[in-house]
């Protein structure tokens, strides 16, 4: 049996207002080459100046990943030619990264601790656009110089599922802290994987690097394909080549991008234009003080304090804006379990976009108001479901809507009795059949009563009153 060893290298763009070494806005969606200056465009004579905001963001990420912060670190140049690399080198931290020796926990069957080897700060490159028809390449340098961190894991992951879970949890953590926007499709979070196979007790196999895996699904599919490909080679007694490969989504296979012979010599050397990066104890403390509750702690707390199921907690916490909306709702008096249930089943139906709670469909106050009315029995669940779309559409509160629509709750026992009686008398044949022993008709009869009052009575009361009626107590 082959044992799989996987390590991930994740590039995360830091959310900062300006680029890593100049004061250009870090908005690369703007019109091409509009956010450039002598520094990031690589003009002669320009020099880099490190952005303190980027360092603070990088520090927060490192603290979340339980890393040791190096009090001094430094920058190096990685030299290679590519049209979207304006200076002909990328400024990175090769010899002395700012953070090392961290870990993150993932849940796959049980809790597993995945080591973080190192995190370093570096700058992003621009983007090339190839126009095949005209045989031209255009380059947009807006992204050039955007701050990144590269998070290198230990080869602690054993299955494609674990790798995907690691990526998922890491993304969640970074998004939580506001360090990264978590956008895998657009490349603000990018994942490369290293994978090798070996037999238990034998030395590690030759590792293959797979580049640009921009979804959890592609990551798993690429790793599964590699597992099979490498196992086949090894079974046949062949060697796995030390290569860099790309995952082809269409064919579902990985393809060679560079062989060992083509691996580039980046000629790393210390960046002479920047001094030593010194991080003081105080800066670490300050960065730590701005960290949010981690998703793991949040999930734990939801189960403990709010008595949610582990699954509900996990889904709620998967988006920081969603969790924040939920907590606010609870804080405003909504019962926690009901709030979770209603948020995940009802409210999400009316939400859209990849992160719907960034601009929530209604305010936590309105949502809490609805749930409190429900809890206090002022309205019934069907009524609540009925008015929710209108609350969202018109921005009205539940109380306002109830008043405006004149929805009256049939809540006195006499009124319910009268209503039940009225409905069931119109259903004589069914009532007779029930009384003759066809008890499965109970549901139908209750349903008819509920339908007739449009849900304006408490189901529990209706249920009980119908039973009493059928058992003849009312006649």
């Amino acid at each position, binding site marked *: 049996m082959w044992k799989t060893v996987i390590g991930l290298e994740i590039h995360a763009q830091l959310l900062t207002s300006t680029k890593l070494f100049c004061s250009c806005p870090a908005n690369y969606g703007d019109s091409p080459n509009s956010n450039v200056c*002598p520094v990031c*465009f*690589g*003009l*002669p*004579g*320009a*020099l*880099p*100046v*490190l952005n303190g905001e980027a360092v603070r963001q990088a520090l927060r990420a490192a603290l979340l990943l339980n890393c040791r912060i190096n009090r001094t670190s430094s920058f190096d*140049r990685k*030299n290679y*030619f590519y*049209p979207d690399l*304006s*200076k*002909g*080198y990328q400024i990175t931290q090769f010899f002395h990264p700012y953070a090392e020796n961290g870990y993150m926990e993932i849940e796959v069957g049980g809790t597993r601790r995945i080591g973080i080897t190192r995190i370093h700060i570096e700058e992003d490159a621009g983007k090339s656009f190839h126009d095949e028809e005209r045989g031209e*390449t255009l*380059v947009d340098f807006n992204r050039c110089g955007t701050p990144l961190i590269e998070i290198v894991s230990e080869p602690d992951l054993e299955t494609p599922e674990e790798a995907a879970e690691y990526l998922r949890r890491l993304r969640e953590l970074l998004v939580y802290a506001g360090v990264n926007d978590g956008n895998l499709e657009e490349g603000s979070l990018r994942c490369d994987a290293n994978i090798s196979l070996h037999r238990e007790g034998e030395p590690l196999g030759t590792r293959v690097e797979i580049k640009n895996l921009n979804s959890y699904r592609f990551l798993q599919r690429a790793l599964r394909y590699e597992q099979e490909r490498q196992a086949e080679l090894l079974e046949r007694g062949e060697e796995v080549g030390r290569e860099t490969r790309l995952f082809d989504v269409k064919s579902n296979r990985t393809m060679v991008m560079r062989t060992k012979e083509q691996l580039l*010599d980046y*000629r*790393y*050397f210390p960046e*002479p*234009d*920047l*001094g030593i990066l010194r991080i003081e104890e105080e800066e670490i403390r300050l960065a730590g003080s701005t960290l949010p509750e981690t998703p793991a702690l949040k999930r734990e707390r939801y189960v403990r304090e709010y008595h949610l199921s582990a699954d509900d907690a996990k889904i709620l916490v998967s988006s920081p804006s969603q969790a924040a909306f939920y907590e606010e709702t609870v804080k405003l008096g909504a019962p926690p379990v009901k709030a979770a249930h209603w948020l995940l089943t009802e409210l999400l139906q009316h939400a859209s976009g990849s992160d719907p709670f960034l601009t929530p469909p209604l305010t936590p106050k309105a949502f809490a108001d609805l749930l409190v009315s429900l809890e206090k029995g002022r309205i019934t669940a069907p009524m609540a479901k009925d008015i929710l779309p209108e609350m969202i559409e018109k921005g009205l509160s539940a109380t306002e809507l109830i008043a405006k629509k004149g929805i009256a709750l049939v809540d006195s026992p006499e009124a319910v009795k009268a209503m039940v009686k009225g409905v069931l008398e119109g259903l004589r044949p069914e009532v007779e059949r029930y009384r003759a022993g066809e008890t499965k008709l109970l549901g139908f009869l209750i349903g008819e009563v509920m339908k007739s009052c449009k849900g304006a009575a408490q189901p529990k009361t209706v249920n009980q009153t119908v039973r009493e009626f059928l058992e003849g107590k009312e006649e």
Partner: protein
Amino acid sequence: MTLLCSLNAREIVSGLRKGLFSPQELFHSLRERTASLDGEIGAFLSRNKELAPLAEGPLKGVPVAMKDNILAHGMPLTCASKILENYVAPYDATVVARLKQNGGWVPGKTNMDEFAMGSSTENSALGVTRNPWDLSRVPGGSSGGSAAAVASFQTPLALGSDTGGSVRQPATFCGLYGFKPTYGRISRYGLVAFASSLDQIGLFGRNPEDISLLFENIAGYDPLDSTSLREPLRPDRDETPKNLPALAYLALPDEGVDPEIREAYPRFLKVFQEMGYPLEEVRVSHWEYALYVYYVIASSEASSNLARFDGIRYGFRSPAPSVDALYDETRTKGFGPEVRRRILLGTFSLGAGQYDEYYGKAFQVRNLIAAELRDLFSKYPFLLLPSTPDTAFTLGSKSHDPVKMYYSDFFTIPLSLAGYPALSLPFCLSGQGLPIGFQIAAPYLNDERMLRLASRYEGIVGGEETLKKRFNLGDEAFTAPPESVHNKDNQSEEVFP
């Protein structure tokens, strides 16, 4: 009016203040001077066609020529290379911005060795510069154009860049003061990088006071240069510490120093003795390795710094069928042979297989040299030493032999490797009438103190007077037409005054 060109910077400032002449008159006088001389000398690559309005400030009216690797907004920036032949600077270097803010102006951009790589200005792809003292000789390099412009009275001051001696060596070849400040004292923002850990903007002047005036107004911390020092300038700093400590002077190597320089050295030292300083001879055991260390480190950094000249975003581009071919052709045709040689040398030194043996080793030896100099400067307030191993050589005599050329920087490089401030000073003339100069170096941030000492030295030696005499701009020559610079007089060696 042509004689306005003989004024030094301080005379210009006070003359303008007194209303003796206008900035326009000075501007035209210098233009005429250039028109009449520079066809032969070739100091400038481009000239400013008109005088922009001047700001008020301590440098009001002072022209400062710029080596053509310093960006001055709207003026050409070529680095004397084909790859930037038609490039126009889109912004001001910090030094240029500060010069303008303080009332100064840029008369033009001066010739240099391509990308500052060379010691004779012969590596310029855009023109020849000749030594104003003897047109058959080189002005030195790489800032040869700036040196020639100041020596031939086309500008009172000029900036150059000194990576291993590129200001101090041409200053000596042209009979000037050439100052390389402490590394980090003058912002490098807007200086095209050759070797970032060594590059420092340097100043040429005909006397130390002019240099001090300019230095005080362009130096100091710049947030745009992360290697610039935060320490404030100390123009009031006195010349020497109390009770005249001993000065160090470097023992001469047994070989490789021109006999006339060897012979003049004790007389140079005597000037300081007569000022009252005891002298002590010192040796720096790793001095001779500095040259090798320098060529590995400077070339390594250059190979990376020059990568941005790729034909993609600006500058020369040689069209080609693929991106790789475009890089190859652009860089092969755009760079001259010496630049290509250093890029190859640096690329090799940084390669994964060679890094430890070359760049890594050079880095270690650099630290050894720095430690030895730190020890020296903890004991002595100044170090006296030669500036160049020989006087200005004839054009073409060394250009076929790069290693011989590299040796020109033997006395200047170690100070650059460790970042110490150093100043070359004119001393006397050789039997052939060529300037001989020496060098002072000082501990970190002792720039101002060193310039004060140089002022006293100039009071004794009178380098500025010698220049005026040489170019018939002395007081007695005020009405005579400028002498042809072709005239090589057989002036015997003399110590000024």
